Structure formats: structure tokens, C-alpha cells
């Protein structure tokens, strides 16, 4: 299948990372579409939940915010914020939670900024802030980060560290006292990145068809190891069909 956009491939790439039976925490936008795609394609027994407290919503229509009334219909439980963040730390359910988050900036250890560009006290640009992202990134063992692959977003140092990744690499995260593990994957409109098991530095795992590792490096401030990278298989006809027809038929998030 070659009639697809990079945004669609990035959504499918994230969906493929989700194991069947996972409890998927997702935010707004593309992460929500990826979670829905996973449930329709490769992880039918997974459960989607939102920080607002909605568990296993049927999602007949695509929500445009995690508090959209579309997340409240036909759920297993409509709880509150206090419950939803509890599931991420609870000794029984916490290990099964996959967090899907995004940000404005990321560094080579997967630390994220969604708060400000420039000085915190006199910001050049103010963003929304953490929401639940810092909590998810702090608590869960398995998180997937969505990013647009641009040099101004893959930076040597984030202007503000909103959500913890592997902090300074090595065992620094554990030493800081954080419970979960750092991020497992970074999924962009060009590539899938992972993290080295010892240094915890970002490495290139897969580049998308038509994108070279060199182009990926040109779009980042910092260097990553590309020696082990391979090309990602394109989406199948079925994956694209399900994405377009079942997950976002109005094209509200994936466009077209």
C-alpha cells in the first residue's frame, strides 16, 4: 500500500507498539486515534482510558478533548481524576498501563517540555502546561511519545522539563526517586526511536519508507546512533482502511 500520509503511518506505527491486553492511557489528538487504531487492529482486548476518569469508552465518535462528552458514553466506569492517576501507580494495574503522550520539545533522554519556550518567568511562548503528562511520565513503565520531527523540537536541552524521561541517562531516573521506567519509544512523522539500555540515550530504530537516516539527523539538534536502524514496513491496506473508516472518518485529526 503506498497511498498514505506520514501522519497516517505515524499513527499506525504507534498502534503497532501496543500489546493486546494493555491498559492504554491516551491524551487528545493523534494519541487518541492511535489508541483506537490499536484496539481495532492489533490489540482488541486492550482498554482505553482517559485521565478524566472514563474507562473503556465505546468511542462511537472521535473525542476532541479528553473531557469531550464522547468519552463518557457507554463506559465501564465514569470515575474521576483521582481514580485515573491511581490506576497508573496501583501495584496491580500500573504495570499494564501504556501511556501515550506528546510535547513541544524533547531531548536525547526523552525528557519533555510542554510548558514554555524561553525563560519560565518571562516566556517567549507559553504552552498549555503538563496536564496529566508529567504524572504519566512519572508513573508508568511503558510510555510512547509522539513528536513532529523538527530541529526546533529535538533539542539539546529542553527549555523547561515538564515530563520526566530518563532524566540525565544511566540510572539517574531511579536515583531521583521516580517509580516507573522512562519512555520506550518516540514516534515521529519520519521515524521510530528507542533508548539504549545502558546510556538511555535515544537511538534510531526505524525510518519510514522514502525517508533516509541522514534526513532524520538533519531534523534534530542532537546526534543519535543510526547504525542499527532499518526501514519500517509500510502500512497495509487493511490498517489504512480501518484508520480512515473506523477511527477518524471525518478526518478531524489525521486530516486528508
Amino acid at each position: 500500500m503506498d497511498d498514505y500520509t506520514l501522519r497516517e503511518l505515524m499513527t499506525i506505527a504507534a498502534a503497532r507498539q501496543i500489546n493486546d491486553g494493555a491498559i492504554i492511557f491516551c491524551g487528545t489528538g493523534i494519541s487518541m486515534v492511535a489508541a483506537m487504531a490499536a484496539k481495532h487492529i492489533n490489540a482488541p482486548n486492550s482498554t482505553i482510558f482517559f485521565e478524566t476518569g472514563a474507562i473503556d469508552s465505546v468511542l462511537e465518535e472521535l473525542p476532541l478533548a479528553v473531557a469531550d462528552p464522547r468519552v463518557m458514553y457507554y463506559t465501564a466506569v465514569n470515575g474521576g481524576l483521582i481514580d485515573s492517576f491511581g490506576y497508573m501507580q496501583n501495584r496491580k494495574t500500573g504495570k499494564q498501563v501504556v501511556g501515550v503522550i506528546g510535547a513541544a520539545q524533547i531531548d536525547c533522554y526523552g525528557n519533555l517540555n510542554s510548558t514554555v519556550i524561553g525563560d519560565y518567568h518571562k516566556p517567549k511562548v507559553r504552552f498549555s502546561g503538563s496536564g496529566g503528562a508529567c504524572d504519566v511520565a512519572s508513573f508508568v513503565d511503558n510510555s510512547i511519545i509522539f513528536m513532529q520531527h523538527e530541529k526546533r523540537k529535538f533539542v539539546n536541552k529542553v527549555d523547561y522539563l515538564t515530563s520526566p524521561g530518563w532524566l540525565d541517562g544511566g540510572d539517574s531516573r531511579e536515583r531521583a526517586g521516580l517509580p516507573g521506567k522512562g519512555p520506550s519509544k518516540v514516534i515521529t512523522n519520519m521515524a521510530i526511536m528507542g533508548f539504549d539500555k545502558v546510556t538511555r540515550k535515544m537511538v534510531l530504530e526505524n525510518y519510514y519508507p522514502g525517508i533516509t537516516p541522514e534526513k532524520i539527523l538533519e531534523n534534530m539538534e542532537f546526534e543519535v546512533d543510526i547504525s542499527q536502524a532499518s526501514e519500517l514496513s509500510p502500512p497495509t491496506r487493511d490498517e489504512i482502511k480501518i484508520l480512515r473508516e473506523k477511527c477518524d472518518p471525518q478526518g478531524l485529526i489525521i486530516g486528508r
Partner: protein
Amino acid sequence: MTTRSEKLMDLSTAISTFVSDGCHLSIGGFTVNRNPMAAVYEIIRQKKRKIHLYAHSNGQGVDELVGGGCVDRIEIAYGGNGRFAPTCIRFKRAVQEGSLLVEDYSNYQMTLRFLAGAMGVPCLPTRSSLGTDIFNKWGFSRELREQDPKLPNEKMVAADNPFGGWADTEKLVFVPAINPDVTIIHVQQADELGTSQIQGLPMADVEQAKAAKHLIVTCEKLVSSHEMKSQSDANQIPHFCVDAVVHVPGGAYPTACYNYYDYDPMFLNDYKKFASDDAMFAKYLNEYIHLVKNHQERLDIAGEERLAVIAADPRTGYAVNLDRK
């Protein structure tokens, strides 16, 4: 003992009685859902100033209060409105211009802070934010904190687990309780005494409500205490927490109220245009808020046709097939 007739009041009286210049206020709801918008508009109309606002992820309500010039300081986790405004527009401008002082927390931390307030304890622990700038950087200086008796002297405090390494935890972050002077929430159903029922997701409204010194409840439907008591499993807030009950149908508009109406995507897109330009926003404040007497008149501007389009479908609780582009 407050009697029924004393609690049941109109919105203008509730706001002028409980919301004062410089007060510490929290509002319920989350991004595009169940923000107490009628109350927000009344606060703007009454030109309340220098408010210290607490919110976790309120979108529209926060942005309009900030845009309306009512807020000096805010403690918040998320200032966005879903796809309609990834970052709330007037909030963004005010922070960049330096007219709004922000203290950043995470959503869970803000929720724990309201819960601590509701429980009557000074703080609650979490492990969220260790090693981050949410922990390391303070929006409010120590000096400002020490000057204001309503603020704790620390933003948050890390300490060793007092139970040693119990539960595999070495370190904890303690976040301080919030006890707002007044919390305002909008609910689907309440009685004259204040017993309240939220349908769909309660978000953190229940914690915010119980943490407050004064609580204003606006409701879609005012029902008898007998009717409330016969659905007690569905109710969340008992009457003795409530100081004012205001019957305001459409009180969350233009945000959604589950089982009653959806958010108004057309208005939220218009708002984006108004908010992006200072002159247009001034005109908006004047025409949609200051020159409007009450929320019914605001709903009249939206018009019956628009309200019919966003009316909730009884099966799903939202407007099915609503054009949300």
C-alpha cells in the same frame, strides 16, 4: 442554620455575595466540558478583579476569566481547550505579556491538593514530578508566598518516605492543600438545599467542591429533595457543603453538559478568532458579556436553532453527528 430560601438565589446575588476582588476562586469542569460558564460571565460582568484562580485543566472558563481581566494569579495544570485551542489564547497572551502570574502543577497534583483541602489535611504525597521543573521552578516567589497568608511558603516539598523503604518507595513529593474562598461548579441536577448530582464524568469537581470555604452550585435542573433522595446512589455532594444554589439552564454553555447539550463547536471556532485579536476581543467582551443582562440573554444570542443542533441525544448524552470541524 441556613434555610432553603437563603440558599436558593439568582446568579447575580450569588456572585456578589461570595466572589470578591482578590478572592481565591476555583471553578469546576474540564476543557470543553461543564465549566460553570454562566457564573464565569457574571463574574466578568460584575468586573471582579485580582482573583487568585485554581484550576486543573479548565479551558474555556479560565480563558474567559483571564481575558475578562479578572485574574492576577493562577495555579494550574493545563491551560488548553482540546482541538479548539491547544493552548488557551488569552491565557497564553496574558502570560507572555507578564500580566498573569502562573504556578504550574500536574493534573494529579492539583487533584490531590483539592482532595487534601477536602480532607482537612495540610498536604498529600505523590511521586509525580521528581527531577522535573514542575518541582524545581517556582512561578510564585518565596517573598510573594510569605506575604500572602492564604498561600503556603513552599510550592511543594520532597522528603524521604517516613515509613523507611516501605512499599519500595524512598522519596515522596508533598503537595499543599487548597482551600479556596469559593468554588463554583455546574451540575446536571440539584435540590434547593444543595444536594447535587453530576452525570457523566465528575472530573475533580467533588474534591474542589468539598475543599471550598463557600460553594456555589449552578444547575440545569432544580428538583425536589424527595427526587434527589430517591436517586441517592447518583448524587455526589451533600447539602451541607453548599452555600448557594442557582438554577441556570444552559449554565455550562458554550461548554458541554452531559445528557443536556454538547459543546458549541461553531462558537468555539468564533471565540478563537475573537480571542486572537485584542480589538475583536474587546468587542466580544462588550457584546457577548457586558451588554448582556443574564445567561438567558447570552443563550438568546446563540439562538434556538444553534441550541437545537447541540442538544444531547438521549441515547449517547451528546449531539450525534454534530459538525465539529
